[in-house]
């Protein structure tokens, strides 16, 4: 598939990368919480994520309430890797604003390890009532 010269930001250190194309997405050090969930199992909340395109904003009802989120897509292959919290409707959820969720199923860990859906019972998306 044709694509131009990808503009990618390089991260140094232990990183999570896209499962399909290995594009670096986030640093291990930037994990805020590992207690999130999504349709495909575990999800981590990150302070910062790179090399993703942010999609359209939409209202979504999460486990912890209504949020405005936008899906994020890997710049390298276009696959959806998680979402970004644009705004939270409830005060106690505001800490998530501007932060990103990467679905564990969609990424390779710092050690290159993958993750298989089905390990954890499927609950709704969101969590970590900090």
């Amino acid at each position, binding site marked *: 598939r*044709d*694509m131009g*010269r*990808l*503009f990618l*930001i*390089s991260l140094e250190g232990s990183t999570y990368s896209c499962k399909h194309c290995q594009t670096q997405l986030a640093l291990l050090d930037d994990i805020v919480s590992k207690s999130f969930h999504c349709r495909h199992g575990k999800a981590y909340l990150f302070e910062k994520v790179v090399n993703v395109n942010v999609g359209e904003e939409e209202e979504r009802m999460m486990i912890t309430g209504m949020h405005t989120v936008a899906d994020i897509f890997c710049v390298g292959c276009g696959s959806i890797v998680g979402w970004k919290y644009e705004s939270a409707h409830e005060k106690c959820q505001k800490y998530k604003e501007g932060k990103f969720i990467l679905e564990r199923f969609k990424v390779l860990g710092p050690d290159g390890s993958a993750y298989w859906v089905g390990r954890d019972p499927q609950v709704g998306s969101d969590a970590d009532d900090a």
Partner: protein
Amino acid sequence: MGGVENSEPPLKRVKVPSGDLKNLVDEASHIVPISSSLGDSMARPPCSQGVEETVGMKGVIKKQEFVKIITRALYSLGYVRTGALLEEESGIPLHSTAVALLLDQVRGEKWEESLVTLHKIGLSDEIMVKRASFLLLEQKFFDLLKEENLMAALDTLRNEIVPLSVDVGRVRELASCIICPSQCMALRISSQDGTDANSRSRFKEKLEKLLPAAVMIPERRLEHLVEQALDVQRDACVFHNTLDSEFSLYVDHQCGRNQIPSHTLQILQAHKDEVWFLQFSHNGKYLASASKDHITVVWEVKESDLVLLKHTLTGHQNPVLTITWSPDDSQLLTCGVEEVVRRWDVNTGECLHVYEKAGVGLISCGWFPDGKGIVCGMKDKSICLWDLDGRELECWKGQRTLNISDMAITDDGKRIISICRENAILLLDREAKFERLIEEEQVITSFSLSEDNKFLLVNLMNQELHLWSIEGDIKVVAHYRGHRRTRFLIRSCFGGFEQAFIASGSEDSQVYIWHRDTGKLLLTLPGHSGAVNCVSWNPMDPRMLASASDDRTIRIWGLDGLKCKGHYSNGNGIT
């Protein structure tokens, strides 16, 4: 052409008082006085009484001034009779009686009398009067010296010139003339070149420039005003892409959009994969393109604007991401992605040298302005300077550049420019060994240096282009928007006549062109069937633009087939 000589009306024609003697002393006055201080006769046309008349629709042009500069222009053009006739018919003499008398006396070399008249003009600025007196007395002094009347000359210097207390340095020079007359000739020639006639006209020019414009209307004033208006028209013309010879006074200047390349003249197909970079040589005779297919192609731009393949440069093991032309365009540098830099001979297509560093991939390259060295960015973030044979001359370690970064060197060899942090560009001063940073809020993806090295065009991740001034005060001076960039490295450039335009590639497969000064998006050029990665405007031909695309082709853009020279708007700027 002499200053006063050709434009002087015969004195006897000045029948009516100027009525503007009072204006000379009090320039703020708009009321034309009835009486004049010289007590001339009162005969004058009735229309110049009372409040000052204006011409033109906006009421800002004073009729008197308007007529006077026309009169001045007529005399300058040599139309003495017409000039005099205009003065008579309008009742508006070019010079006041006193000034006319002064000019006449100056022409007749009657220095004593001219000094008297000078004081009668009624100038309020004392220093100016003194300086004008100085000029007149200087002429008297030189004349006396010429007659070899040293005593009288000395007397003039001592008793008339020195008491003025102006231009003391000149006084000393004049004094030296008395002591050494031959020196005087040298002096006279050095300050007032050439023969007597020439030196006389030079003196008149000086005198004219000294007196206020209202007293002695500057020569070529009308021409100057017209040129100013043309400048304004030209600046307002966003499509302007030609030399000035196309101006007409009959209608306001306005180029049509067909002055900018907008039409595909050629589609160059030689690459087997995405074309990522291209650039014209400094002399505009060649174009080099680099591709993901590991190959660089050198194209030749023929007289007829036809672009033909000249060489295919193979050797890189990785996609070629950038090309730089040597200052004299005889050689090329190409850089493979995290690989090596190769130097090629443009004429023969031979690879002359391979530059590499053990264990470290190269990511950018640039020529040194003297053509004797190259600068390369490394994957380990350092920047190295090598001579042509590959010997390392200098190395800046630390975070000087990033994995993906452009490299530029100013023509004076003093500054090296590269992206050193996600949102910062480093301006590394080689000599003074200090650094300055351009800092943005968004991530920087690429940049381009202007021809005069005073501006940097920066591409940001959020699809904006920022134009930075990097000389003196470092700051953003313009923004350009409209193109698309979400995933790729897209490049932009300066171009066109006097680099008045900004062009950019875009992920929507179009070429975008903005007017540099106003930031206005002028054109979007469809045609490519893949993202346009890079654009280059021919530095020697403002009508030619090249673009490189993911569709594996290069397009050469030129002016619209109709080839109209310009489209003029209706008359006097009323649109």
